[in-house]
């Protein structure tokens, strides 16, 4: 709360205010309770406790808020990926392994406001996946070095 004069600060701190200054307390309370539900939004006495609670929550709920916003970003990125046929987990993994340093906030913003950029990121993830698959297949189809016998070779000879 911003206190423009020392007098107002005294009014806010002091419970025993003169009748002429009564409205200042209510104005300051309404600044904090304008977004509440029901009568505690408009009535001073009913909003005393909820306002205290909300001030307490504003500090204790900070890690929970971070967690909620993180979940929201995850959901949004997953939705954006699904539109292009990529899974969220493989998308994030592809970006991490290719050293693309975009955090979840920026990815969520891109998925909403820059759809074509996000599409290109998804295409990148798909291309990387196909390249890895090709690489894996190439390793499997390589001729084995001499001296190694596999079960396949024995079965084929029989």
């Amino acid at each position, binding site marked *: 709360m911003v206190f423009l004069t020392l007098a107002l600060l005294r009014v806010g701190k002091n419970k025993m205010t003169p009748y002429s200054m009564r409205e200042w307390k209510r104005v300051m309370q309404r600044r904090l309770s304008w977004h509440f539900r029901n009568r505690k939004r408009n009535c001073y006495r009913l909003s005393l406790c909820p306002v205290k609670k909300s001030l307490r929550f504003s500090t204790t709920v900070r890690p929970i808020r971070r967690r909620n916003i993180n979940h929201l970003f995850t959901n*949004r990125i*997953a939705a954006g990926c699904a539109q292009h046929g990529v899974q969220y987990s493989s998308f994030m993994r592809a970006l991490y392994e290719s050293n693309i340093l975009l955090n979840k906030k920026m990815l969520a913003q891109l998925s*909403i406001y820059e759809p074509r950029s996000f599409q290109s990121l998804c295409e990148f993830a798909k291309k990387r996946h196909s390249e890895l698959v090709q690489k894996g297949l190439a390793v499997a189809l390589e001729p084995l070095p001499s001296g190694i016998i596999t079960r396949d070779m024995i079965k084929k000879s029989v």
Partner: protein
Amino acid sequence: DFIRVNSIYGFQNEQPHPHYIFCQQWAVLARTWWIYDANQQCPFRSAYRLTAYLQGLHKPVYHRYGDVGDHVVVFNTRHIAMRGEFWRTYKHFHHTRYAGGFSRASAYRVHEEDPTRVLERACHNRLSGLDNRRTLMKRLHLFPDEEIPAEILENVSGQIQQVQVVPKKLEDYSQEVIDSFPRLFKMPEDYDIESYKRENKLEPDQHTSKAWRLK
């Protein structure tokens, strides 16, 4: 026409940046209607997908308070499939809020009464914990067979993919295909092939007395 998009995070006191206002796309905020065929699908796995569309989780602009969900029309709920013994063992509970008003019923009995209730309950249970559950359930339209009113069908503009592949039954194959299928071995002539079709050979729950067994 540009409309002020106030806040995408639902934060309090967040001021909109000017460029958020100017890149609004009308199709993003439209409420689309999706259709889903529940023939031979698991209700619980279908609910997983359908509730995602109801809440709006398939959209990048998703937010819980944002009311970005879509309508979902489901037909063929009469022909839903549950695994194992669930038709018998999965119970639906009901309490009338009066003394002695508690009742429970197996899924098959509920299905006989109302063929849409099993899937409706599955979706309802999946949306637990949400404030706007009732609103979302109102946007779910269930029909037991393939008859859907024209005014609803008009709105439909997309289809949700089925959860399970519908298997082909023996009846769906033509007699020629069945006859031309190679035979592995021939049964001896005195072997009684039809014994499995007789009474009390089909019933799985042998622990129930004969009066209570299903016909």
